[in-house]
């Protein structure tokens, strides 16, 4: 082997080592942050399985000595877990269905139908994205509680309680989200116009063009939209706690929050409830992981 070849090899080895060191450093950082994000969940799972005396005295042991299910039993006694889960599911499904239908219809119209007033309506919606939910909280509550001819109200919205305490009260303000309309619009714009034009020449009505031609093509966008709505519906707290203050109908987040009332230190059942509330979302995520990430990626590139 020539002297030159040896020198070249030495340089290469050095470069490889530097590259290896760099990768090891990256991995180390990744592991550290993965722990930061993962350990809180794991710790709450541990706490939910530990007997009471072990919870406070366990120290930094990341494995339970004794496994018990008593906290889960207690958590299920404190709040009607299945009832609340069902309520939340009902609300979430309604939000998903209405958003899927109405937002894709509106998004399609803005993208593919040229009609009088479409620009004005679109601009109005675009502008409304700026209004923070803070401002809407109180008047939205009034609109729903004073809704005419609902929940014992008369024509002028007096006398009854309207939609407050009713699951529709939670659904209605989120039944259509402007963001989802914009999302569907930009998806339909990316589909070719020729598709509909050919069908229209053959005499198909606009409804048929939409439902039979364009909507089937929008399946991936609709999957992403469902994921948006699922997360928003399942996890929302502020609005349900405003509109469902009265009455027996409660959602899961309200049930969870009731554990912290009176500064309770009963951490076992509290963690058991959190674990149970998180599992459904985790399952959905595992099955629809692609759409979660796609949705977020969209919201970033849209800007």
């Amino acid at each position, binding site marked *: 082997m020539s002297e030159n070849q040896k020198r070249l090899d030495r340089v290469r080895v050095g470069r490889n080592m530097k590259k290896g060191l760099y990768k090891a450093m990256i*991995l180390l950082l990744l592991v550290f*942050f993965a722990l*930061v*994000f*993962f350990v*809180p*969940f794991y*710790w*709450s799972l541990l706490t939910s399985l530990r007997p009471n005396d072990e919870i*406070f005295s366990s120290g930094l042991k990341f494995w339970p000595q004794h496994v018990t299910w008593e906290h889960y039993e207690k958590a299920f006694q404190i709040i009607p877990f299945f009832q609340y889960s069902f309520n939340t599911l009902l609300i979430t499904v309604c939000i998903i269905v209405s958003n899927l239908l*109405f937002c894709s*219809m*509106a998004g399609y*119209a803005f993208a593919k139908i*040229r*009609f009088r*007033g*479409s620009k004005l*309506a679109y601009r109005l*919606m675009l502008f*409304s994205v700026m209004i*923070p939910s*803070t*401002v*809407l*909280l*109180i*008047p*939205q509550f*009034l*609109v729903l509680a004073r809704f005419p001819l609902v929940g014992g109200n008369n024509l002028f919205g007096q006398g009854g309680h309207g939609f407050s305490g009713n699951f529709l009260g939670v659904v*209605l*303000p989120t*039944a*259509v989200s402007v963001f989802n*309309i914009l999302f569907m619009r930009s998806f339909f714009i990316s589909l070719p116009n020729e598709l509909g034009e050919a069908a229209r020449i053959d005499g198909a009505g606009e*409804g048929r063009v939409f439902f039979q031609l364009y909507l089937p093509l929008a399946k991936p966008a609709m999957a992403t939209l469902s994921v948006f709505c699922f*997360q928003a519906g399942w*996890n929302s*707290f*502020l609005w349900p706690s405003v509109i469902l203050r009265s009455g027996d109908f409660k959602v*899961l*987040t309200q049930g*969870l*929050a009731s554990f*912290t009332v009176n500064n309770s230190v009963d951490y076992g059942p509290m*963690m058991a409830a*959190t674990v149970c*509330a*998180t599992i459904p*979302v*985790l399952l959905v*995520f595992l099955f629809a*992981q692609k759409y979660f*990430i796609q949705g*977020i*990626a969209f919201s*970033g*590139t849209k*800007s």
Partner: protein
Amino acid sequence: MEHSKNLFKHTKKTNKTLTGWLFIAPAFLCFLVFLLIPAVMAVGMSFTSYNGFTEAKFIGMDNYTRLFEDTYFLQSLWNICKYVLMYVPSVVILSFLLAVLLNQKVPGIRVFRVLFYLPCLTSTVASSMVWKWLMNPQGGLLNQILSALGLPACAWLNESKTAMMSIVIICVWSTLASNIMIYLAALQNVPSSVYESASIDGAGKLRQIWQITLPLVAPTTFFVLTMALIGSFQVFDQIWVLTSGGPAHATTVPMYSIYTNAFRESQLGYACAQAMILFLMILAVTLVQQKFNKESLV
């Protein structure tokens, strides 16, 4: 002949307008009733003494003048400024750096992406409860780690000095994931040839991040910053679950004040005035940020 052609064209056009409006009708109706009308109502109500039971009475600017004598509300404005100043830079900087980290080519990167995404999946209520336990002064995981490292224990949420910082930590932890994924999507759109030519020119990794990556994802930074700003002014869930505005009003934020004024003390008009102030603050900050952004781009 000419006339009938025009007529045909005309009916076709009105027909199209009708179908268009029929398509957007359900969405537009919802938008009108649950968004636009409430927004107008909010402005109007802020000038009344409405309490939810009796007739609303117009009282002019009284609610607004009262605001500036309300020490709790002024305290909440001060608190939210502290919160925004701590939260927004942390979220923007950390999410960018962690996205760069997740964009590296190392084995198992897909698993890491899923793990980093976990906090985004739980509701803020659930994650707040987990953190309430982690930050518990006695037996909580954080203090146990501190004592294992030989550091003094911290009271976290239980002391007014550290309460807001603790809230910031929790909020950053639970909102970081979605911002990381937004950045990651932007980073993956940067063609690798850009980096290749840079490293041929001898630019180190850190310099590449600073001089190539950062300018290329500037629009994403703008988006993340805007969303973080708007969201941070409206923080509520964590406060409600963790501190109820305490200790000693150290974590009372405008949203919490609005909620209690409106739905516990039935001062809806007054709460609307508070909401308008919060709205004006958000508007002012986003306008300043947008102007600043435009100047820096030119």
